[in-house]
């Protein structure tokens, strides 16, 4: 468990129903929308090839609407013939979702829209209907487990020292949109209050598992539970319970406070986008200091190594760039298909 500045990659899983997504090679910043799509309800299966009297392999050529497109009731989806034309039309408003091997069509009504935001400044290295992956350079701390959706915001210290717990009273709406560093422990009360106040995410040495169960349900495990729904985002840095942050871990937080940051819950990583030189940070491996049945504890390393130069910190303001999306390349036009 170490602060490291190097090249990282972060993959962003996409739900079904992607409409647009960033293209490979595109430059993105953390917080940018890299994919957008529709949340779909139960799909309707519409006979296609059979209705037109075509073989499934020929049906693709007659499609008039690209798979993944939005359609309204009555839209001609496929058509053959001229004088005695036969056609397949959309029975409902929705999204043409899928074409089966038999040449049938699935159309699903749209009930909501979703977006996925980048958690890393960098270049899109992979983009398909399942994942958008970004590669970029950042300060990173590999946590133990993360819960909730990805979060992006300004890194803010919420405690006065590495041994302090984050008091719920220190959380209010003025901190909305920020990622708060909670010291040794954040309680369930602090998590729920932070979510209610619009806090982007919480980072702490440890989180009581009983509190996690209160917030995320009894099925929560020590390996984390990344999700897409509207829930609090929590990153446990060292373990569970109350875990004081060693100086080598805490002091970079102080140095990087105010910088843009992101929590990538899939990999339980905290990315901080700053050119600040926080020194050569080393922390002991878990097996050196973690003993007994309590939460893992880590001996602090040489303070000189961990001291960060706050004066040279180049703080960046959180910026939301304009959306720049390209059509999904996995949704080829009928002609291409």
């Amino acid at each position, binding site marked *: 468990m170490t602060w490291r500045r190097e090249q990282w990659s972060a993959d962003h*899983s996409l*739900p*079904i*129903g992607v409409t647009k997504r960033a293209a490979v090679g595109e430059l993105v910043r953390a917080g940018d929308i890299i994919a957008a799509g529709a949340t*779909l*309800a*139960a*799909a309707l*299966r519409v006979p296609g090839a059979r209705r037109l009297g075509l073989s499934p392999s020929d049906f693709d050529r007659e499609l008039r609407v690209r798979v993944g497109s939005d359609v309204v009731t009555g839209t001609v989806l496929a058509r053959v013939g001229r004088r005695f034309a036969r056609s397949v039309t959309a029975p409902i408003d929705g999204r043409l*979702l*899928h074409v*089966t*091997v038999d040449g049938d069509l*699935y159309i*699903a009504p749209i009930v909501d829209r979703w977006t996925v935001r980048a958690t890393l400044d960098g270049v899109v290295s992979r983009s*398909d*209907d*399942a*994942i958008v992956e970004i590669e970029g350079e950042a300060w990173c701390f590999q946590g*133990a487990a993360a819960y909730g959706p990805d979060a992006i915001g300004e890194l803010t210290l919420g405690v006065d020292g590495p041994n302090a717990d984050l008091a719920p009273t220190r959380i209010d709406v003025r901190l909305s949109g920020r990622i708060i560093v909670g010291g040794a422990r954040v309680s369930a009360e602090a998590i729920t209050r932070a979510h209610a106040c619009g806090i982007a995410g919480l980072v702490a040495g440890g989180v*009581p*598992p*009983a509190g996690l*169960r209160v917030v995320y349900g*009894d*099925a*929560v*495990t*020590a*390996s984390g539970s990344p999700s897409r729904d509207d829930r609090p985002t929590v990153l446990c840095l060292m*373990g*569970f*319970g109350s875990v004081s942050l060693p100086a080598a871990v805490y002091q970079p937080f102080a140095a990087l406070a105010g910088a843009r940051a992101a929590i990538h819950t899939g990999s339980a990583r905290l990315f901080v986008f700053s050119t600040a030189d926080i020194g050569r940070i080393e922390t002991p491996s*878990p*097996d050196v200091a*973690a003993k*007994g*049945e*309590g*939460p*893992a504890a880590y001996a602090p390393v040489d303070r000189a190594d961990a001291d960060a130069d706050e004066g040279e910190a180049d703080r960046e303001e959180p910026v939301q760039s304009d959306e720049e999306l390209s059509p999904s390349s*996995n949704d080829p036009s009928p002609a291409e298909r």
Partner: protein
Amino acid sequence: MTVSTGTEARGVGAPDGIGVPVEQTLVGLGRSLRLALLHGREEASRRAAGQLALASGAEVVARIRATDPRSFVEAAQALRDARPDVVVIQGGPKDQDALAEVLEALRLGCGAQQPLPRIFGLVDTGVAHALRLHADPFEFERFAAASELIEAIRAVRRAGTEETELRDTVIEDGARALATTNGTTALAVDVTERSTSLVLARADGRVEAAHFVPLGLGMGADHVVVRASLDNVRRWLPWPIDAPALLERVFNRPRRPGDVATTEAAVLLEMALAREAIAHALRDAADAGLDVAAMRSSPAILITGRVASLPKAGQSLLVLVDGLEPSAVSTVFREPDEGRAERIGMVVPVTPRKSAKIKIVRASGRSVARVDPGTFGLVSIGDDVDVAVNGAGIRGHGRSGELGVLIDARGRPLWLPERDGERIPTVARWHAALQAIADDGSPT
């Protein structure tokens, strides 16, 4: 007798006893194999798919029935989120259309996954032909027998490194060796950091295996709590502990893989987790249609893994009788990962309604043990001697190990008082009976 289940497989290309490493439950990819199950509407199909999953040693990440109430989009999303490495299909001709639709959901959900999941079908030739059309672009392989399919999944887990010995196959070999040696049914119970296995081997070489991943004492400890509930783990501890404190200990276990329990509190927590892991594994095995009654009545039982490595033999034996709840006379062995197999005791489970007597016969003579309902304790009988027991509705023979004969008259199913004031003294008494705890009963 020695059956190698350790981290070094003896005799595998190494005459001096140091063989190739035995892979725990990880595949060549460095993680558990992720398995999605698609099965027919019949109960038999669900059970067959369940047995395949348990025997394969893979982690089941999605399960979709042909008559699944989820919509097409929900099924596709569930499969996408599951990111399976292998999809297993089991069903009959009646399920063909419904399974074809599930395969369309798989195409929508996992069509962009890298690498693409492979589809293994245990279906008729005709059904396979129809489903193969819907499986494009996935690789579809049909298997005529369950054993072939399981071997194919294990080949995927090995990921081309054929010299890697999978732990589950070593456990199965161990159970088979014990059954052959004794000429009876044998059961191997293996609980490791992140897996729990139950392998029933018959004298003719047939094996019924159930390998649960993740479900163990380290990386899988939190899954034991999720599946069995925290209260069910806590009830085995012979001292009071509040739920948040226990949960914290359990959640921090995966952070220290490979740690050996050194304090009595840690050992007792491992024992509690192991009991529930075994009990939960039995419930799932019964649900999949495996012969749990035969497992419980097996005359020879081998304990391996972390449970076999507990400091005292009595601790291993206590975990076994509490978790498995044997129903017949059994001789119990344990083989730590870094040691040889040893006979640790003989279990005599009885369920008398009133006081009864059991005749214990051995070469040096015979004795009579008086058994009251609820009795739980060891009868010293001498190291490793042949013993026959008769009476109180039980009859059988075996060999006492270093601990002797354990008379278990607590009844089946095993019941624990709910109130701490009654439960803790009861559990502490059981621990004390097998010298599994310090005399004062407090954690150290």
